[in-house]
């Protein structure tokens, strides 16, 4: 019996499992791009051919200066707060990085990227000031800690070879006050309190050497409300007031002014790495801003002059932000001329490398902080467009004559297009190869597999990527907006030819709290004819937005419904047809607003107020979390069904031929709240299934002693969620499935106000890996089996069939014939992670944050976009490719067979005719 049930299990596993990729399919429809995050530290090595970078994503990498490719990359832990705070190049071909929270010092070999040593600096109390520097041999840390009598300075030295720690006894700092900005220019500590008018300098090895230098003595006059800010660049400190900038060298005697007069237009300075070691420290590079143009100036510090012939203008790409990091490299050409290379990080998180002449390459590091992804259809090809025009509705000519002319002209146009494409080489008569498909025109293919990925990132930069190659088609930086909260809506797809597709971004203005919309064409990236250059400033603050699922009839636009702070609804675009469309639907329109901190959920119903005016009224309100302050409970996720998801089957046929109807409530959302620090069971997560039209709580459940991360997937009539079980120290997946029962209450329409109470099946499973993102696949018609994509912390993406998480898998009865007939596997508490189910085979996707799925026009295939530190795109076919021929289908062979059969039938017909003739003569 046992062996039988096991063999049955294996049979099921074999049946359900998608086949892994074949070797020749690698890279055929998937691609991966690796990123490092916003660059915070960049250092050229002594040859200028490599750049060592440390980023906000806590990543250390070595970039090749010629190509911008990553030579090696280390992700030094991905907790939200940790980032690289300091980065130093040591003399002996090593690089030292210091990461914060937890503070860890690591030393790597630059050329190979091999970790030499690392040490965690554990602290009982957080130091007031913690600065790092390197001497010739050691990595040095200086901390200022509060002590009984005031503040103490603690100096620790770590040997750069072995990492052994050497702590000097603490010395008192009687002059130190909290809030002081201190910079370490080894061996001096330079401190400036914002309210003070003097600088304190102390040699960290000798605390008696304290000096106090009045700012007036440095030639800086400080007004009443002026602030002086202190910066540090290698062994220089800079002092900046609103309109002046000065640079000082720190010596034992105090501060020594260098570089003469620096203009107040200086934005950033950098001490260039110079190719010949003797000239090291002789030059200084500065980035100046004059109106909107940037220029790089090189100073010779010894001669104290600007090298005008070396300096040059900076031409950053159009859609780059403001520079906020400068690193430079100086080299002498064979003809004796000096020339510079720069590496600049800008506020749009991109990283540029170039020379006086041009920018050689740019890395778009904003792609590590993706907020939202939409995959949009491409416009129809020019041939299909001409067909559309031919059969379009608004025809000036009619009658036989007009039709003939139209047909002839359209066919002539099509012929021209084909000829053009032949000349341009877009149509190849031989079979297209993978390389040829990369430069294909941006038009729709037959199966909807070629789309454009619109990517909205945290710094407000918008990208459009080609799904075939991952090439960035266009990019745009949103201007004057505060992108803490930003959403992207596809209002019109490209199906409605000849109307252009249109997308809208909702965000906030950077100057006020009011909402801003940016309307654009998703294929070209050009702003649409709205407001000023596509920006529409709204005079209210939006608290909720809803894209209506149906488009209106005249312009085929899906109206965007915006709810302002006083809960008054607004429609965008404010055209008559859109408003009429919303008013027509208003009796059945409901919106809800959730406050994640206070856990208050409020539902509104919309109604038409006057003939063309909308109003809203609150219809329900819930308050989910515990009111106790010690339990920090808040909403961690709100998940609704994908608006385009279709459910193919209304129920499940049981073994006795009766039907178990699914509870398909289109208005239900899943709200998860999580609390920490509860006295009895520490962490807990509550899951609420709420009907957001009536405000009814359909079901609620709670797990105790659990930890984040929490992920929720909700599709059709089932919910799958994951949490970390603290008691058993493992990740578990909970699964809920809702049924109406054996009868369906209303088979034609669903009303939330008369909804039946569902039956809830539930089960939990152990998952032997850590999940960092979860998403369900869905197809155009909903016929294809559902799989769940699990992004794991080790960089894998597993495709798990939903049937494995079926809550009806029987525990006690070992596979009764009924269950077998229904196709339900017996319960196994642990879910498998087989290697064939890893859709990204060996293409590890680091630090997975989210997964996006879009169906293609092929029912079997869905497009998957995974983002994190890397981005990965692939196709998944949960029920295999049942609707397309295999890639290796032998077209020639089948043609040959068909021709052969036809020939054979003719020959045999002739032969049979002859034979019958001969027999007739007998």
């Amino acid at each position: 019996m046992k062996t039988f049930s096991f063999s049955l299990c294996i049979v099921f596993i074999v049946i359900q499992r998608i086949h892994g990729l074949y070797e020749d399919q690698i890279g055929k429809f998937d691609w991966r791009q690796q990123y490092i995050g916003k660059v915070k530290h960049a250092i050229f090595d002594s040859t200028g051919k490599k750049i060592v970078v440390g980023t906000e994503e806590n990543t250390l990498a070595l970039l090749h200066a010629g190509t911008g490719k990553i030579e090696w990359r280390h992700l030094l832990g991905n907790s939200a707060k940790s980032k690289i705070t300091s980065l130093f190049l040591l003399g002996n071909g090593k690089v030292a990085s210091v990461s914060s929270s937890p503070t860890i010092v690591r030393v790597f070999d630059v050329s190979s990227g091999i970790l030499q040593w690392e040490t965690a600096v554990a602290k009982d109390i957080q130091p007031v000031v913690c600065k790092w520097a390197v001497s010739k041999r050691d990595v040095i840390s200086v901390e200022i800690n509060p002590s009984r009598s005031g503040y103490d300075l603690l100096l620790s030295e770590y040997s750069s070879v072995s990492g052994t720690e050497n702590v000097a006894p603490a010395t008192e700092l009687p002059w130190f006050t909290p809030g002081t900005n201190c910079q370490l220019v080894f061996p001096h500590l330079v401190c400036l309190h914002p309210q003070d008018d003097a600088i304190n300098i102390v040699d960290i090895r000798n605390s008696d050497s304290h000096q106090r230098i009045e700012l007036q003595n440095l030639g800086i006059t400080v007004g009443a409300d002026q602030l002086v800010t202190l910066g540090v660049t290698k062994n220089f400190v800079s002092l900046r007031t609103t309109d002046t900038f000065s640079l000082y060298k720190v010596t034992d005697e105090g501060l020594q002014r260098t570089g003469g007069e620096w203009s107040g237009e200086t934005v950033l300075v950098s001490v260039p790495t110079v190719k010949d070691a003797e000239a090291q420290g002789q030059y200084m590079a500065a980035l100046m801003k004059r109106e909107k143009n940037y220029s790089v100036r090189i100073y010779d510090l010894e001669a104290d002059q600007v090298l005008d012939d070396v300096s040059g203008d900076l031409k950053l790409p159009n859609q780059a932000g403001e520079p906020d990091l400068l690193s430079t490299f100086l080299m002498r050409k064979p003809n004796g001329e000096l020339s510079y290379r720069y590496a600049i990080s800008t506020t749009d998180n991109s990283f540029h490398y170039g020379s006086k002449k041009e920018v050689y390459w740019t890395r778009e590091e904003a792609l590590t902080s993706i907020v939202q992804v939409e995959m949009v259809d491409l416009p129809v090809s020019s041939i299909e467009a001409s067909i559309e025009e031919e059969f379009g509705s608004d025809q000036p000519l009619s009658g036989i004559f007009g039709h003939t002319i139209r047909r002839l002209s359209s066919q002539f146009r099509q012929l021209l297009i084909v000829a053009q494409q032949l000349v341009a080489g877009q149509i190849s008569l031989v079979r297209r190869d993978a390389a040829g498909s990369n430069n294909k025109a941006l038009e729709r293919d037959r199966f909807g597999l070629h789309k454009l990925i619109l990517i909205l990132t945290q710094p407000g930069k918008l990208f459009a990527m080609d799904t075939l190659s991952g090439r960035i088609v266009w990019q745009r930086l949103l201007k004057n907006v505060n992108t803490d909260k930003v959403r992207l809506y596809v209002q019109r797809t490209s199906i409605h030819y000849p109307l252009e597709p249109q997308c809208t971004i909702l965000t906030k203005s950077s100057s006020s709290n009011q909402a801003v919309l940016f309307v654009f064409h998703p294929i070209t990236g050009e702003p649409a004819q709205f407001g000023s250059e596509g920006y529409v400033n709204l005079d209210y603050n939006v608290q909720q937005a809803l894209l209506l699922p149906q488009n209106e009839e005249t312009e085929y636009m899906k109206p965007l419904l915006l709810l302002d702070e006083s809960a008054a609804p607004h429609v965008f675009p404010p055209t008559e047809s859109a408003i009429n469309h919303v008013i027509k639907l208003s009796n059945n329109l409901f919106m809800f607003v959730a406050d994640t901190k206070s856990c208050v959920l409020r539902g509104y119903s919309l109604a038409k107020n006057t003939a063309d005016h909308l109003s809203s009224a609150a219809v329900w309100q819930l308050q989910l979390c515990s009111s106790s302050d010690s339990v920090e409970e808040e909403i961690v996720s709100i998940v609704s069904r994908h608006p385009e998801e279709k459910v193919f089957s209304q129920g499940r046929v049981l073994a006795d031929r009766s039907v178990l109807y699914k509870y398909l409530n289109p208005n239900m959302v899943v709200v998860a709240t999580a609390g920490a620090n509860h006295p009895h069971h520490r962490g807990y997560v509550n899951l609420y299934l709420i009907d957001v039209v009536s405000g009814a709580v359909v079901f609620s459940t709670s797990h105790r002693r659990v930890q984040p991360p929490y992920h929720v997937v909700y599709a059709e009539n089932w919910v799958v969620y994951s949490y970390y079980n603290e008691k058993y120290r493992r990740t578990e997946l909970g699964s809920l499935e809702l049924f109406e029962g054996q009868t369906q209450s209303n088979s034609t329409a669903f009303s939330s106000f008369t909804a039946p109470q569902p039956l809830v099946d539930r089960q939990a499973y152990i998952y032997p890996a850590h999940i960092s993102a979860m998403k369900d696949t869905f197809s155009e018609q909903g016929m294809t089996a559902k799989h769940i994509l699990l992004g794991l912390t080790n960089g894998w993406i597993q495709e798990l069939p939903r049937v494995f998480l079926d809550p009806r898998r029987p525990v006690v009865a070992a596979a009764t014939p009924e269950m077998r007939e229904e196709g339900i596997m017996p319960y196994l508490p642990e879910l498998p992670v087989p290697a064939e189910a890893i859709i990204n085979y060996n293409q590890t996707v680091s630090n997975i944050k989210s997964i996006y799925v879009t169906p293609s026009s092929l029912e079997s295939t869905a497009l998957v976009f995974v983002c994190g530190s890397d981005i990965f795109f692939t196709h998944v076919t949960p029920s295999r490719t049942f609707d397309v021929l295999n890639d290796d289908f032998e077209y020639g062979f089948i043609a040959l067979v068909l021709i052969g059969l036809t020939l054979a039938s003719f020959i045999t017909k002739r032969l049979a005719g002859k034979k019958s003739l001969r027999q007739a003569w007998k």
Partner: protein
Amino acid sequence: MALQPVLQCFIVVCLFSIVSKGELESDASSVIQLSHSLGSRPFEPRGQINVRSLKLGSVNIQQDSSYDWKDYKEAAEANEFYHLEAFVKYNGIERTFLTSTKACLLYESQLADIITIHVDLLGNIYGVSVAAPHSQQCTGTVSEFEPNFNTTVLISYMEHGPVPDVAMYVQKVEQEKVAKERGETKDNRSFIAKYWMYIVPLVLVFMMSGASNPDQPAR
């Protein structure tokens, strides 16, 4: 508006979850003040629900319908909402909840409504919702009735989440092992499922011989 003050005491205790009421971590008594409105009319007091114990689910309700039969009829015909506001006080915590249903559903059920009090595992009341019995269809043909609420109060408790059933699975495997050692494995497969490997060749042999037989008389 003709007021018909009717005091109605109606105690219904109903548990609608599998979880036993003892699961609740802290018990509390609570008073829920109800006020209601039809459509956009101002809120009027409807009554109050006294929850003596959330754990035991003992509840009584005192209420009166401040609206007239005609008001419900009008609201039902205008397809308006019936709003119910609940002001809840328990353990020194005050919360206000709002819930609505279609006025026509309430009117059609002759004011037979169901008020559900939602309680989480920590004993917090996180929602109060009103609904009409779900057999209503909003067809709008009801004869005149006394505007007295016939209320069912339900307390909906939160349930414990599912746990992976490892113990049961291990037990099952163990049992199968023991049974196998004893040689007691009862094979409950059907006859064909058991012996298909013998039957198929037999059938094949018969078919082959049967196929060759008819030829002979033809000669």
